[in-house]
């Protein structure tokens, strides 16, 4: 008898979100995020902070595609962020590329690198995967350190300020103006978000969910688990590469630190703070992390201690992160009347 009433309204059978508000939020997730990003420079204490939220938020979105949605925890995503940044800078310094060519080089290069690292890393599983990604990213770090003629070695890559981005039709953006630069970078972040949202809604998005939920079963159903993981790894690497590219354009230098374990760590922490596997989580996490850093560094140079402690507390008491816990709460309340 239950079944007839439920059959009558197949539209009212959402997958995870019994709350209709949640579904609306899902449908409008890209415009909503972009709208928030638009006002960010005016609500945050500094524009520098806003630009960092933008860049690290995108970095985290890319990482979250692999960790949150595909279930693979990488500790080496600095390699792709750094590769994007370095290749952008290097193609300007050494080859005199324009901004668009440099960005393309950065993103394509990061994707290729993630294809190589991904192909090696997905041969392993679980804890092994974390270790291998970390080690391979260290390899990239030391390569950059050694190839100082190309990368500037320990001093980082300098001397590629892009002052003006020429657009078609004679328009140009003054990248020396912080606000213009912010919106210029935001356009790419918005495009990337739209792309991620699309991927998540696509059949491939269902495939990575299946792999995350139950690899064995996914394989028995006919999914090529290895190829699905690799593709997800490459998409994730490409997005992180784009974030690196934006960071290079923003800072006009690439510090060697962009490739370090520390950078890989930051993105893991941001994802955990915001909530892995949710669309808004990464930006929430990036914002919270950078705010903690911003505030804590005002009164101590050892703000990393505070970040570490906060992170430990999250793992212990709020493993779903801020946004993830909010979703869980809303879902529980939404389900109660049923």
């Amino acid at each position: 008898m239950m079944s007839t009433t439920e059959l009558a309204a197949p539209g009212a059978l959402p997958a995870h979100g019994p709350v209709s508000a949640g579904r609306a939020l899902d449908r409008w997730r890209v415009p909503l995020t972009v709208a928030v990003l638009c006002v960010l420079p005016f609500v945050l204490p500094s524009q520098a902070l806003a630009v960092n939220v933008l860049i690290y938020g995108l970095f985290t979105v890319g990482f979250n595609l692999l960790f949150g949605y595909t279930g693979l925890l990488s500790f080496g995503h600095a390699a792709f962020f750094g590769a994007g940044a370095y290749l952008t800078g290097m193609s300007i310094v050494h080859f005199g590329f324009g901004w668009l060519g440099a960005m393309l080089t950065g993103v394509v290069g990061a994707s290729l690198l993630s294809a190589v690292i991904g192909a090696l890393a997905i041969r392993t599983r679980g804890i092994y995967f974390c270790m291998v990604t970390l080690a391979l990213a260290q390899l990239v770090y030391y390569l950059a350190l050694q190839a100082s003629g190309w990368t500037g070695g320990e001093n980082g890559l300098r001397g590629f300020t892009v002052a003006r981005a020429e657009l078609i039709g004679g328009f140009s953006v003054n990248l020396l103006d912080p606000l213009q630069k912010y919106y210029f970078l935001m356009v790419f972040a918005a495009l990337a978000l739209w792309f991620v949202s699309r991927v998540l809604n696509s059949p491939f998005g269902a495939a990575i969910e299946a792999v995350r939920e139950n690899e064995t079963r996914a394989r028995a159903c006919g999914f090529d688990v290895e190829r699905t993981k690799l593709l997800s790894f490459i998409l994730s690497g490409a997005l992180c590469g784009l974030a690196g590219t934006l960071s290079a354009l923003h800072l006009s230098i690439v510090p060697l630190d962009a490739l370090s374990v520390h950078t890989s760590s930051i993105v893991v922490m941001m994802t955990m703070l915001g909530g892995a596997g949710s669309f808004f989580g990464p930006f929430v996490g990036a914002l919270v992390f950078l705010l903690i850093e911003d505030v804590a560094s005002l009164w101590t140079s050892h703000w990393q201690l505070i970040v570490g402690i906060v992170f430990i507390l999250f793992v212990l008491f709020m493993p779903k992160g801020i946004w993830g816990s909010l979703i869980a709460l809303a879902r529980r309340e939404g389900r109660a009347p049923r």
Partner: protein
Amino acid sequence: MTAIMSVTDVGRSFGGFVALAGITAEFERNKVTAVIGPNGAGKSTFFNVLSGVLAPSTGSIRFKGQELKGLKQHRFAHLGIARSYQITNLFPHLSVEENVRVAAQALRTRYDILRHRESYPELPQKAEAALAQVGLLHRRGRRARDLAHGEQRALEIAIALVADPELLLLDEPTAGMGPEETKDMVALIERLAADRTILLVEHKMKMILGLSDRILVLHHGRLIADGTPAAVQSDPEVRRVYLGQNDGYA
């Protein structure tokens, strides 16, 4: 040739341990074949080899004339072989409908990142049909992990069924079920057997005797009997190692 799958001299060892030794058998189209044997006889290994989870160390497996040895496991599904699991093995956080739909999708499109997943109208239809077949339609919105045990078992079958496989491998489909649920499951298997080949591993002797057209008995990794239920039941070797003096209880 009526055999849909033929297994020739298949063996599998782990390190020095021989789990399967030289099994040769043929599975006839649209028949129900059961594999039985004491614990540790090699049933699961055999089942895993047939479903592509394990590659055989020796021998060959042909499905509709095609050699399967060396193929990756996911290819088995695409060729028309589907399996269920003994221990419930679902996508726990997805809804019942999503569980089945994603299984249907695996054979239709896997890497498309630009279309919407709902732009394949046949997938929900297939999912609905499979759910209807196992009687789970009224639970389609529930999360898989929130289902009752029997319902999870049914969903297990639906996931295998949605691919419309020619060969269905069932690993103890009635594990942990009461007599009512078992009866339903037997009825379901009989319905499914009308137009596809079914191979099942089971413990419940009575159920197998009534359901199967043919029974294979494994012991210590070897095939010690292969025949009709009646023939196998009266086989002295089978009685000695498996059935024991008192029938019915294994």
